[in-house]
């Protein structure tokens, strides 16, 4: 044994230890920066780090963590962090802090230098985190990222209206050419058909030979009209004439029947003017539709204003929240169900196996963090309790309670990260009232197609629950005080959008996110303004499209209506000619037949009258004769009686 080296050894160890103690601040600062960069993926800057051995305290001043998504801003910064470690656990390499204080915390403050890590370092960190890519939360974030990319950043409906506007402008005075139209050709065909019908039906009328068939009736009538009926002898003489007249009646009825049939046929053949008009108008409509297609007037878009305005930004906020929950679960893991109760964490080139003892404190624990800072102009303060690497050993969940107010504005954050059992349960609730509309992160907030959010204020209530692999998130946003922007003259699309927004001075939006293992992420954003805007845009859009169609209609009408009117006139004239002709034939035939019928009736009545008269005369004579006979008989009887009893 080289005992003489014992003292030099002690000296060397002492020097090294003192050296480490003297430069502990530097070493710790370096460790803080490198671990912070590994966790946040962006630059971490520490203004000052001081250790004090007397109470094992550490004070960190001006800590700034850059935002990796916006490298010219800080994710957060703090003025001062101070805490002391418990001495006994420290001897066992356990970092237990009873109380930590974080003062002057700010979020999103601007940076003077970029917070991006050097590419080499970033690549190294990304390589490390590549192992986590198959994790459940990573997949959710990837899925949400893809959804975010496909979310429309600008209002599609404004583009559609602009397209419609362009389409409208394409309609010059000679946009519609006669050769493009089918209607004039159809009208010509129609005219030819009308002529054919006219000819056909004229022939039909001629073939009825009405005058020819009426002639026997009228001559029999004439004859019958010449009859003198006063005596019974006249009746006997009139009988053949009457019979002749009667015989013409069936033929007359048949003629009327034929005429009626022909009339129906003619009317059916020609059809109604209304039908013809309808036909021509349909042809016109088809031409207009075809020309409208040529213009490529866009179809009415479905409006989801909420999705367009808020979708992208809230997807990214949901993504960030999921990222930090995943981070919390990584560094404060729930106790895994395995035969080993050891926590296994990849460290250095191998794995750290922890051997927690129920009576011993966890490797890392902060019992209480008193936090204070400012968000916007809200001074907030709160407490975060029980941050540890072994929640199951500690037996208590991590809780977050932060609150702040400033006049009308208020902020309230409550959260519980319960990883004490196998299934981690994380709940978070954030309420922010009086947020400026411009801070909502609305895409294209200065877009000319949106109302102004400058003087608006918003209230946000965000609630999320992460139980195992299930996520349920809901964000409700109410924005009030929207103002329609002034529109410069001449910009029709902006005017249209301003009309659409008129009267809407507040929007309520709900963004929902649900996800379960094995199912696709479901994200939706909806607002109460969507229906109102949809109706208004439908109306305006419809008006624009209708206006375009009207222009086309106008031009088509100009080219077509003249021909249409001519064709209709010709149709009506020819139809009238034929129908008038057959009507006159019909009335002539009916008149003759009625006349004949009337004559027959007259003659028959007259005959009946004469016969009645004769009959009555005969009856009277008979009666008289009977009476006379009776009288004579009576007288004779009397005489007989007299003679009998003389």
């Amino acid at each position: 044994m080289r005992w003489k080296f014992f003292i030099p050894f002690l000296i060397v160890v002492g020097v090294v230890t003192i050296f480490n103690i003297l430069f502990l601040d530097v070493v710790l600062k370096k460790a803080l920066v490198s671990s912070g960069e590994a966790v946040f993926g962006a630059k971490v800057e520490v203004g000052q780090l001081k250790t004090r051995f007397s109470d094992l305290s550490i004070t960190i001043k001006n800590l700034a963590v850059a935002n990796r998504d916006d490298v010219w801003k800080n994710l957060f910064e703090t003025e001062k962090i101070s805490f002391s470690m418990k001495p006994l656990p420290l001897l066992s390499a356990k970092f237990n802090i009873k109380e930590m204080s974080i003062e002057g915390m700010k979020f999103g403050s601007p940076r003077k230098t970029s917070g991006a890590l050097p590419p080499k370092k970033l690549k190294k960190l990304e390589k490390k985190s590549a192992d986590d890519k198959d994790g459940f939360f990573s997949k959710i974030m990837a899925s949400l990222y893809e959804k975010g990319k496909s979310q429309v950043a600008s209002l599609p409906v404004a583009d559609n209206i602009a397209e419609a506007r362009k389409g409208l402008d394409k309609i010059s005075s000679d946009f519609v050419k006669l050769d493009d139209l089918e209607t004039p050709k159809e009208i010509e065909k129609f005219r030819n058909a009308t002529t054919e019908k006219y000819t056909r039906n004229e022939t039909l009328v001629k073939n009825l030979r009405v005058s020819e068939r009426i002639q026997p009736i009228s001559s029999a009538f004439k004859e019958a009209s010449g009859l003198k009926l006063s005596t019974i002898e006249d009746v006997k003489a009139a009988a053949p004439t009457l019979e002749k007249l009667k015989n013409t009646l069936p033929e007359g009825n048949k003629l009327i029947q034929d005429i009626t049939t022909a009339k129906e046929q003619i009317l059916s053949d020609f059809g109604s003017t209304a039908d013809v008009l309808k036909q021509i108008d349909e042809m016109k409509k088809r031409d207009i539709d075809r020309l409208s297609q040529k213009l490529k007037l866009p179809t009415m878009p479905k409006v989801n204003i909420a999705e367009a305005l808020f979708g992208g930004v809230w997807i990214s906020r949901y993504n960030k929240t999921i990222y930090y929950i995943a981070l919390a679960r990584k560094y404060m893991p729930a106790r895994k169900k395995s035969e080993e109760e050891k926590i296994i964490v990849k460290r250095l080139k191998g794995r750290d196996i922890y051997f927690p003892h129920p009576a011993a404190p966890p490797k890392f624990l902060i019992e209480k963090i008193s936090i204070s800072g400012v968000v916007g102009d809200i001074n907030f303060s709160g407490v975060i309790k029980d941050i540890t690497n072994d929640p199951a050993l500690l037996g208590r969940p991590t809780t977050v309670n932060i609150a702040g107010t400033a006049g009308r504005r208020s902020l309230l954050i409550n959260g519980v990260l319960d990883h004490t059992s196998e299934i981690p349960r994380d709940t978070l609730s954030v309420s922010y009232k009086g947020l400026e509309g411009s801070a909502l992160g609305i895409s294209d907030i200065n877009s000319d197609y949106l109302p102004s959010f400058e003087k608006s204020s918003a209230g946000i209530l965000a609630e999320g629950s992460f139980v195992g692999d299930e996520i349920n998130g809901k964000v409700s946003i109410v924005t009030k005080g929207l103002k329609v922007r002034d529109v410069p003259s001449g910009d029709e699309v902006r005017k249209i959008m301003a009309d659409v927004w008129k009267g809407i001075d507040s929007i309520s939006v709900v963004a929902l996110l649900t996800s379960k293992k094995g199912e696709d992420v479901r994200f939706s954003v909806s607002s109460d303004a969507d229906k109102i805007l949809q109706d208004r845009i439908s109306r305006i859009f419809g008006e624009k499209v209708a206006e375009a169609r009207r222009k086309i209609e106008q031009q088509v009408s100009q080219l077509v209506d003249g021909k249409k009117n001519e064709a209709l006139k010709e149709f009506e004239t020819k139809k009238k000619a034929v129908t008038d002709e057959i009507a006159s034939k019909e009335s002539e035939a009916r008149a003759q037949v009625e006349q004949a019928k009337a004559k027959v009736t007259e003659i028959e009545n007259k005959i009946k009258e004469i016969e009645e008269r004769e009959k009555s005369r005969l009856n009277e004579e008979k009666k008289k004769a009977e009476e006379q006979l009776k009288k004579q008989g009576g007288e004779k009887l009397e005489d007989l009686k007299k003679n009998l009893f003389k």
Partner: protein
Amino acid sequence: MFWLKILKKILTILHSEISPLEIAAGFALGAFMGLPPSNFVNYIVVFFFIMMLKVNVAAAFLGSGIFALLSILTDPLADKIGYFFLVRLEFLKNFWTWLYNIPIIPFTRFNNTVMLGSFIIAALLFIPTVIIVKKFVLYYRANLRQKVEKWKIMKLFNLSKFYSIYDNVNQ
């Protein structure tokens, strides 16, 4: 230049009059510093043993350097061995738990699989390393030393001066 320094160190030790056993033991002890990942407490403990025991310090540091290079190859195996001892051997669980929860010991990072595995590999390799290195030193001094002394590089190193300084220090 780094390799030149290593070569210089090796030749210095080989061409000195230091006991082969001391050289071998020192070299083998260097494995306890070189194979495991860097850890201050481990270094202090191993360095203590190196300083206190009658082993060659230079050989120890040389061994530490060479085994550090070899650790690239042995780390995966060390991880497996460490995992086996820390996790699979259930009867050791209480021992590890006791060790993990007493002061100072956790600073050795014994609960890291590569750390413990590397220590076990260094321990397993200790005797074979001592035997091999001792045999090599003896062989070198008997058969190769004089040839190598004639190399130009030896003149460059100016080793004769170093020999005397080295001998004095070791004695």
